[in-house]
């Protein structure tokens, strides 16, 4: 599975939503990821963006509507994106649940640290 044409990890790194994610992730976990780890995450995010045909910023924007009181989450859209991530996970893993989950969780982490509350079904 590959990202959409024009979506490369280096391009993603400049986007506001991606920078916000990486900053917040580092702040929460109290660490600075290695360049290889960041590259790996950006590649997976690019793969997902190719899968759903959009950019990370578009993805985050699509989940909120602006109101006078501030941004509000679009509930139906969130359910749809959660289902997309599940599907991405299945396709990416090609039968290996652990591999698929790792990929899906990179996307979930990106959304969570951009203020989109969601989680995954625990593996048990």
């Amino acid at each position, binding site marked *: 599975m590959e990202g959409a044409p024009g979506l490369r990890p280096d391009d993603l790194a400049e986007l506001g939503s991606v920078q916000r994610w990486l900053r917040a*992730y580092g702040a929460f*976990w*109290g660490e600075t990821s290695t360049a290889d780890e960041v590259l790996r995450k950006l590649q997976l995010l690019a793969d997902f963006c190719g899968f759903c045909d959009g950019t990370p910023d578009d993805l985050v924007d699509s989940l909120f509507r602006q109101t006078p009181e501030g941004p509000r989450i679009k509930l139906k859209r*969130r359910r749809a994106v959660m289902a997309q991530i599940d599907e991405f996970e299945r396709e990416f893993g090609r039968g290996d649940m652990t591999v698929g989950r790792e990929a899906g*969780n990179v996307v979930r982490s990106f959304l*969570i640290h951009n203020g989109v509350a*969601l*989680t*995954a079904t*625990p593996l048990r």
Partner: protein
Amino acid sequence: MEFKQLVGSRRSIRYYQPWHPVEREKVQTVLEAARLSSRAVNADFAKAIVVDRDSLSDEDRDSLKTPTTQAQLDLAPVWIFWYADLDAPKVGESSLKLLVDAGALNPSHGWSHAYVDEVVWPQVLTPIINNPGVLAVVVCVEAGLAICQSLLAAVDEGLGTQLTAFNSEAAKPILQVPDHWLPLWIQLLGYPAESPDGGGQRPRGPFEEMFFEGRYGTPFRRDPAVVEELKAARMIQEAAPHPWRQAEIRGISRMFGLPE
């Protein structure tokens, strides 16, 4: 567990061992604790429906979740759906007279059957019952007292526990909940997959900004010696997060395949 330590040890547990069932007698003990809570007019405000997570269909289980409660609902084997019964105070006239007969409400304090029949029921309870806003506040506070005891009882039984939100509209047909029950919380029960102290005691606001003496604005003086005694008794414990908490969260998240 000693009472002070029990109060100090309760945490909202969000990671449970999904494979470890909860003994039925422990669930009953939790409910028994709720039944014995303090309550106005001796009415049964708190109502609960106990559900075994695995007895629900996948569709029903998913419909009860909210986006941030999904993981703990999947992990905890037992869910107690707590409700506040808006009809509960309707028994007030008879339940108060039972308290008179039991020697709890006594003539020494002005209580009698006549006082219940002629004053308390028509002039106090009936207006409350007929005022939906006031009634909702009353039943929620009273049910909350019962739920608090059930939380502490769960910890005393060595369980992890937490109150969490749920989709009450979805729950109504699944659980066949009566219209006069007001949805409150799900109380989760299970054995913790995280350390039972949840990585430390949660942050709280300053004591002096919560409690006052004589009038609002005069803080209740907090005696450091008492604080030290409570630390020794384990009511006041080490503040979160422990130095290893991040590593614990990460380890558990990876074990269950949860996002970081």
